C-alpha cells in the first residue's frame, strides 16, 4: 500500500487532526496475522483504551504507534503528520512499559531525567523537571534510590514519571497495572485518570481487563483476532455490544436467539420473579453463585438457551440465595434493554 510522503520535518500539526490516526495498518509475523487491516482515529486529549484478550493485536497496535514495529501496510499519523517511517526517538510519544523497563544501573532521579538528558537539557533544568514529575506521581522522596529498592507500585509510578517528563503529545501505556494487586490497581486507575485530565495528554491504554477499560476510558476499541470489533464510549460498548464477541468479552455473554434474531441483554437488567404465570420467559434456576455484594443466577429457559441474572443481595442472606437452586422462575425485561447483535450494518 502506498503511503504519503513523510512530512515530519518542519511541518506543523494540522489543526483539528486527531492525535493518532491509523490507516489500513497490517502487521504479520510469518503466517500469523497480528493486525489485519485496522483504521482508528484517536482524538486529542482523549483517554482511549485498546481492550482485548491476549494475542488480539492490541499490544502490536501500541507498538506500531510507538514505532517499535513497522507495519507491513498502512500509515501512522501523529497530529496530522505522517510518522510511518520515523524512528521511535523521532516520535512525540512516550511509553510506559508493561515490565516498566527502568534502567537498573541508574537511580530513580537519573531514570526520570533520562529523556531530558539525551535531548541535551541542562543539569539544573533536568533536576527541576524531574523533581516536579516525581512529586506529581507522589514519589518525592525516592530520587536517590535504585529501582530494585522500590516496591512494584513505586516502580510503576517511576515508569510513569519517566514517560511524562518529556511532555509527549501522546502517552502509550501497555498494561501498566498488570503486575499490581487489586487494591493498588483500583487506586492507580483513579490516579491515572486524574493525571490524564490534569496533564491534558492523549492516553492510549492497553488492557485485557474490561473493568479497567470501562472505568477509565473516554472511548475504547475492543480487539479480537487482529481486528477491531467495536469502537465507542464505555456505556455504548457495554449496553449496545455489536457482536457476540463484544457482548461476551465486555461483561457476561447473555445471548438469546428468538425467531431467527440474536440479541443480548445485560444480566442486571433482567427481573426475576418466582413462580410462573404472566409475560416473559420461564425457566429453572440451574446454578447459584454467591459473590458477596451480588448473586449470579444461571437460568435454563424452557424455550431454549440460558441467561445469567444478577441480583443485589440487599435483604437476602447467602443461605437464602443458595436455596433458590432448582426453583422455577419467570424472567422479564424491557425491550429497550435488549440489543440485536451480528446485524449486517453493525459489521
Amino acid at each position, binding site marked *: 500500500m502506498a503511503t504519503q510522503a513523510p512530512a515530519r520535518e518542519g511541518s506543523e500539526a494540522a489543526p483539528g487532526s486527531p492525535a493518532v490516526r491509523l490507516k489500513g495498518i497490517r502487521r504479520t509475523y510469518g503466517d500469523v496475522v497480528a493486525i489485519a487491516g485496522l483504521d482508528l482515529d484517536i482524538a486529542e486529549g482523549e483517554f482511549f483504551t485498546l481492550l482485548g484478550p491476549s494475542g488480539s493485536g492490541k499490544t502490536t497496535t501500541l507498538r506500531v504507534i510507538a514505532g517499535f514495529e513497522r507495519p507491513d501496510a498502512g500509515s501512522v499519523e501523529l497530529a496530522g503528520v505522517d510518522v510511518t517511517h520515523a524512528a521511535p526517538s523521532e516520535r512525540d510519544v512516550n511509553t510506559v512499559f508493561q515490565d516498566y523497563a527502568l534502567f*537498573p544501573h541508574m537511580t530513580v532521579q537519573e531514570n526520570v531525567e533520562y529523556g531530558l538528558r539525551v535531548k541535551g537539557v541542562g543539569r539544573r533544568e533536568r533536576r527541576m523537571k524531574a523533581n516536579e514529575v516525581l512529586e506529581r506521581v507522589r514519589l518525592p522522596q525516592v530520587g536517590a534510590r535504585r529501582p530494585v529498592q522500590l516496591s512494584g507500585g513505586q516502580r510503576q509510578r517511576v515508569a510513569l514519571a519517566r514517560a511524562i517528563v518529556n511532555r509527549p503529545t501522546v502517552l502509550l501505556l501497555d498494561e501498566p497495572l498488570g503486575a499490581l494487586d487489586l487494591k493498588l490497581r483500583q487506586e492507580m486507575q483513579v490516579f491515572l485518570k486524574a493525571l490524564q485530565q490534569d496533564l491534558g495528554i492523549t492516553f492510549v491504554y492497553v488492557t485485557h481487563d474490561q473493568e479497567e477499560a470501562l472505568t477509565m476510558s473516554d472511548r475504547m476499541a475492543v480487539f479480537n483476532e487482529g481486528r477491531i470489533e467495536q469502537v465507542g464510549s464505555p456505556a455504548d460498548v457495554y449496553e449496545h455490544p455489536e457482536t457476540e464477541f463484544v457482548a461476551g468479552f465486555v461483561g457476561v455473554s447473555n445471548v438469546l436467539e428468538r425467531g431467527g434474531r440474536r440479541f443480548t441483554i445485560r444480566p442486571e437488567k433482567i427481573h426475576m420473579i418466582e413462580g410462573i404465570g404472566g409475560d416473559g420467559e420461564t425457566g429453572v434456576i440451574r446454578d447459584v453463585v454467591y459473590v458477596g455484594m451480588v448473586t449470579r443466577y444461571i437460568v435454563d429457559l424452557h424455550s431454549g438457551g440460558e441467561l445469567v441474572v444478577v441480583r443485589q443481595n440487599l435483604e437476602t442472606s447467602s443461605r437464602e440465595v443458595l436455596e433458590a437452586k432448582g426453583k422455577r422462575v419467570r424472567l422479564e425485561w424491557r425491550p429497550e434493554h435488549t440489543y440485536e447483535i451480528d446485524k449486517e450494518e453493525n459489521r
Partner: protein
Amino acid sequence: MESRAARIALGGWTLLVVLFLWIPLALIIVYAFNKANVQSWPIPGFTTHWFGVAWHSQEVRQALWLSVRAALTTTAAALVLGSMAAFAIARFKFFGREAVSFLFVLPIALPGIVTGMSLNSFFVFNHINLSFWTIVIGHSTFCIVLVYNNVIARLRRSSPSLIEASQDLGADGWQTFRFVIWPVLSTALVAGGLLAFALSFDEVVVTYFTAGAQNTLPLLIFGYIRLGQQLPIVNAIAFAMIVLTVIPVVLAQRLMRDTGVLRRGGTAALTAK
C-alpha cells in the same frame, strides 16, 4: 530431624573437606619462604630470598611475559566472540539455537587433553607452526565460554525493553549504547574477562600441546618439577601465581553479585542531593 550430633558431624566433615583443599596450598606458601633449598619439615627458617632469585631469572621472566601476553590476547578474543555469541543466542530465535548454545559451553567440560591433542593434530595436519597464536587459539576454545555464560546470564536477567525504553525517550543508537547497553553489560564483561584471564594464565594441558618450543609460566614450572630442579623457585612462583589468580576470581565474584551493577558512587551521590 536434624539433631545436634548430626550438625556437629556435618560441621566436622565440612572442616575436613576445607582442610583437604587448602593444606597443600598452605604448604606451598610456607615452602616459598623456606630458608633451606631442600623441602623438609619443619622448615629451618623464613626468607624472601627465592622471590628475588625467581624475579631475576631470565627464563622465568620470559615465561611470565609470554603467559601474560597470551592471557591478555585470549581475554580480548573471548570478550569479543563470547559477547557476540551471547547476544545472538539471547536475542534471536533461529533453527538449532539450543545446539549452538550447547556447542559453546561444551569445551569447558571437555578434558584438556582431548582439546590439546586434537588442536595439535589439526595444526600439524595443516602445517601451521606452533606459536604464540596457537596458544591463544587453544585457550580461546574454553575462555569464550566464561564470557558467554556471564553475558547471557545478564541478558536473560535484564528486561528486553530497556533498549526500546531508551529509544522511546529520544536516545539515538550511540546514546543507547553508552548510557544503557554498556553500563548494564560492563560488569558481566569484566567478570567474564577476569575469569578468562585467570584460566588462561595458569593453563597447562592445552598449552603443552599448542606451545611449541616456548614456555609459558605453568609449563616452566611443570618442567622444573619433572626434572626436580629449582624447587625453591617453583614454590616462590607458585605463591605469586596463587595471589595473581585469587585476585581476579574474587573480583569477578563480587562483580556478579546481586544486580551486578557497578556502584557509580560519584554520580549517584551527586543526584541524591
